[in-house]
């Protein structure tokens, strides 16, 4: 039984990874095919006698194991249930790559987001997020009065048009973001544009109430430049590799 459940847990996201659309179609087809599957089932208890529960067959290549359909919780497959969810996310990441004044990070980020399911029981979602991030600022003084400082603060808006659940536990998100980042200069500071892309693989916990994720992507880190002609802003690409924790607001 345990083996079967584990197999179910592993196989379902694998199928979904290979073809998410097929996974949805498969889920719908399975729901419609439940009566046919019941032909293979047998009553488990007296309470179950009143309603004939379907069984689902799993094969590990050696034998076939049957698992009650309610154990797979098909109707709550994509947790948390519902179409719209709000949440908070804290991300910490390293920033490998780039030369001074770009640092290695870490970048810390607090985001608020909203998840919208395209369909109430579908695997596909759409996430919008706004985030504030902080990272160590570094400076170089190459001479001739030039000051170059990397941005420590960014305000980001982020959209994940590709965000879908890989079974009960995993979610994959691919998104892009833009915003503004601020860097101090000796005579004040300057706002620079902010661009990024981010990929995220999240493990959902506590029936989808929380998640931990690993993420990676590229961001254009702002570098403010002061020289004798004035102040300006440059952006330099940096890789972003890190993880996050998040939870859904009640």
């Amino acid at each position, binding site marked *: 039984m345990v083996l079967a459940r584990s197999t179910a847990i592993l196989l379902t996201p694998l199928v979904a990874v290979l073809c998410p659309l097929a996974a949805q179609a498969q889920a719908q087809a399975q729901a419609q095919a439940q009566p046919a599957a019941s032909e293979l089932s047998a009553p488990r208890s007296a309470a179950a006698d009143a309603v004939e529960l379907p069984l689902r067959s799993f094969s590990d290549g050696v034998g076939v194991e049957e698992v009650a359909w309610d154990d797979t919780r098909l109707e709550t497959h994509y947790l948390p249930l519902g179409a719209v969810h709000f949440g908070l996310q804290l991300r910490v990441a390293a920033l490998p790559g780039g030369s001074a004044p770009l640092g290695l990070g870490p970048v*810390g980020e607090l985001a608020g987001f909203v998840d919208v399911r395209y369909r109430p029981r579908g695997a596909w979602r759409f996430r919008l997020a706004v985030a504030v991030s902080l990272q160590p600022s570094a400076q170089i003084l190459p*001479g001739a009065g030039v*000051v170059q400082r990397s941005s420590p603060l960014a305000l980001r808006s982020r959209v994940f048009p590709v965000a879908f659940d890989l079974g009960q536990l995993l979610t994959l998100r691919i998104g892009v973001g833009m915003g503004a980042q601020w860097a101090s200069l*000796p005579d004040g500071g300057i706002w620079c544009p902010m661009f990024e892309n981010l990929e995220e693989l999240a493990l959902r916990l506590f029936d989808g109430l929380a998640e931990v994720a690993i993420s990676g992507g590229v961001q254009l880190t702002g570098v403010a430049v002061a020289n004798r002609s004035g102040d300006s802003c440059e952006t330099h690409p940096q890789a972003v590799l890190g993880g996050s924790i998040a939870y859904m607001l009640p």
Partner: protein
Amino acid sequence: MRTTVGGILLLGLGSALAAGCGDEPLGSAEGPPPVAGGTLLVTDDGRWAIASDPDRASIHVVDLERREALHRIELTAADEPGRGVEGADGRVHVVLRRSGEVLTLDPASGEVRERRAVCAAPRGIDVEPDTGGLVVACAEGLLVRLPASGGDRSVTTLEPDLRDVIALSGDRFFLSRFQSAELLLVEGGAIVERMRPPIAESIGFGSATQVPTVAWRTRAHPDGAIMVHQLSTSTQLGTLSVPSGQYYGGDCVTGVVRSAVTVFDAATGPRSAGISGASLVVDLVADESELHFAAASEPGNLLPLNGVRTMRSSMLAGSPACNTAIDPYPLSPSAAIAVALTPSGARVAQYRDPALLRVDGGMGVVDIPLPGGRVEHLGYSLFHEAAGSGATCASCHPEGGDDGHTWLFDIGARRTQTLRGGILQTAPFHWDGEVADVGAVMQGTFVGRMGGEMPRDYELESFGAWMDALPALPAPRIDAGSVDRGRAAFEGAGCADCHTGDRGTNNATTDVGTGGEFQVPALEELAYRAPYLHDGSAGSLADVILTHGRGGTLSDGERTDLEAYLRSR
């Protein structure tokens, strides 16, 4: 669970805020010392390079065979390591310019064997060929000899402003003087010959005569001695009316300050060459056919780094004509502050920030990073920046002091003033007191005359703070009784009416009978910076005392004590 997750979120946000919102200063509080140059030694066997690094208060021992920095001897900012020399036993001796000591180290182990006090301001060091003892030239005018076998030092008092020493056989020495660019031949404890590089005729804006100043480095040469120095215009210049960029300094065709090299050849007389296209040349080394220079100017918007330059020895002529340096390194990593040669002829150059040794052995160039990190400082950079003309602030204020030169302006003769000892406390600036603050100085001089770009306010702030932190040279050790009596004479003669406070000035513009109203100068480093007064007309402190104030009313003894007191400040 939600409370825990929320707590983690808040903790992470707080940590990120603390890490990310700092506003970095534009250099350390004290900042690196002004460039002195000539801080690299390669041992006779070519195995070790000893690089004094005053910017990082360190001495680096580099293994030239393995091409790596092997040891870092950490010192304090109050030491300021400078020139080094290798003793007969293979140990290396390095002068500590500010703490007044000679440090002895074993290059193989990196261990410091000894630190010996020698004088107030040691500069050059060499090994006597006859005895193996050390000889140290001190800026206050002392020649200190340290026996190789230990024991008491012997001290010979010569003239202030000593820089490098070259020990010859038979109790003879070549000694260079920094500001006056003289080469002294000392024999039996007395100066027997005094030589200077030839005077030059500039072919820039009008005809101008240029006199030698600021001998940054003097080394032994098969023909005698070789010196890299500056040439400063001694004919009349404009002041406020000068055209922009008149203080050309990097190009020997024009310019009021430029670099030159002179070989003092006992057989043929001095031979010189102007060094074109290099600013603030602070070190040199010569092989059979070429001269290699280290140019320490920081990059400007208008001029790039100079780095190491090379000139053919055949360019040396009877007068310092304009000669173009050749073979610059393709890309200089930072300002070059010292250069040396290995016995096999490989060129080793010391670069400042990032700190590294660049070894060019003919089989390609190898960079050896030196530890200690960056020491970037906006104030330092501006002071050493080659302005549009190529001149730097350090050209006329070497090491933050002065070049000892008296400039002939249309408003009269004006001697360069030192910047050390807390310059911001002496505003207004210039002898006439017509310049209110650092910004006005830079507008008039750096932009108006030197052709530089006007620095931003934050640069000026860093620049002023850096200059203000430059310590005055330590006063020479003088008999305390004479100093006390001199102090009494100072106050009795009314000197303290104007020369008040720690720096010895009330910052007023006053007529004391020296030809007009001038700023009351600060009374620091008086032992080091003859000539005196606004026009350099007083060759000694005795002349100063006699020629202004009520000094002429003092007795001979009082004047002697007063001079001792002034030299002790």
